[in-house]
């Protein structure tokens, strides 16, 4: 009887150790991974100007929603980062590059390969060389599009740089989530030093 009790206690102890929490920590689940990638073979050094589109595309569960306006603080963050890299803000017809954001409010996982953004009548799709990972609620994508040449009718403009800020906008409006979005944007630029132009100070 004594031995049985010892065995029982040992078994309970082993099961107790084995049965501890098994999941991913909250700080990782709710963390903000930032993904960036430049188009293969791209050269940013000759670039000089950029246009930041004030419109943010919004998607929810794969369906495009009415667009929203980019928060002022987010526009300021992007402009500051681009200026530091040697770019100058320009108007739409003359800018060499265009930047546009897309906010994914999805409640389920979407594969990033499916993203296309309407850009002045042309589609700038998430490139095939980009990371074909997945994202879910609150992810914001930003693409830099090459505006130097006019695409053929019905064609798409080439993408120069992509970034994905995972889970950065878990709020109902972009304004409410702007601080987290700004933090993610700064990280995206910081981990993309190749964006620097030859005009950078």
């Amino acid at each position, binding site marked *: 009887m004594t*031995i049985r009790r*010892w*065995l029982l206690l*040992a*078994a309970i*102890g*082993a099961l107790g*150790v*084995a049965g*501890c929490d098994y999941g*991913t*920590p909250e*700080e*990782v*689940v*709710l*963390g*903000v*991974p*930032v*993904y*960036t*990638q430049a188009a*293969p073979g791209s050269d940013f050094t000759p670039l000089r100007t950029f246009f930041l589109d004030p419109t943010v595309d919004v998607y929810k569960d794969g369906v495009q929603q009415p667009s929203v306006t980019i928060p002022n603080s987010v526009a300021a963050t992007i402009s500051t980062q681009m200026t530091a890299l040697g770019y100058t803000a320009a108007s739409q017809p003359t800018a060499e590059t265009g930047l546009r954001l897309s906010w994914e409010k999805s409640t389920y*996982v979407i594969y990033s390969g499916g993203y296309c953004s309407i850009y002045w009548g042309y589609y700038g799709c998430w490139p095939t*060389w*980009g*990371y*074909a*990972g*997945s*994202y*879910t609620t609150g992810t914001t994508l930003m693409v830099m599009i090459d505006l130097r040449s006019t695409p053929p009718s019905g064609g798409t403009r080439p993408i120069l740089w*992509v970034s994905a800020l*995972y*889970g950065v906008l878990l709020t109902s409006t972009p304004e409410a989530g702007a601080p987290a979005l700004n933090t993610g944007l700064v*990280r995206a630029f910081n*981990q*993309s030093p190749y964006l620097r132009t030859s005009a950078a100070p």
Partner: protein
Amino acid sequence: MTRSYATAALAALLLAAWPASAQYDTGGWTNYRPAKTLFNMGWQMSQPIGNFHNNYITGTSFRGFTFDWRSVFAKNFSGGVRFGWNRYENSLSNITATTPAGGTLTGPAFRYADQFAVSAIGHYYFDTGGGDSFLLPYLGLGLGGVWSSSYQAMADLALSQSGFFFIMSPEVGLMINLAKGATTANLNLGFGYNFTTISFRNVSNAQSIFETVALTFAY
């Protein structure tokens, strides 16, 4: 006459007492009987080493257990089967990873690796007390297979790998007797090394050291 009755009463008492005394003396539990079977169950800590440590898990695993059955088939030798489990995990506040397509991914990450091993084991016991030692050092070796499951997550981005691999586990240890009887109980303290062929991502031939605190019952 009285003397006769007293003699007869003493004789009857001795006769009546004799069988009980004889049963006590020939009883089994106080005689030496070497243990033939051992069960070992306990808790195991483990520390990754080599590229398993450098490239994947830096900390100590406090989640593990071991259970083994051993049969003593020759003097000081036993053979048996061991089941063991270790879970290694790490949370990283910020890492930078390169995607297969050449992109850069930074952020907080979580990684784990589960290893569930089934091994044939052999042990040699340095028994200097004729089977009655308070301390019983031993050497052991395990050879078998290990099922590995590993997982990496950044937010809701996740990768996982699994497979079945080879494992070899030499160990040294010490049994400390806690109770003697028909079944004896020992505190078993062990230290060993795991070599496996587990390979995933940038980990190859995952290795670790381990410490075991267990109870061993022998009968």
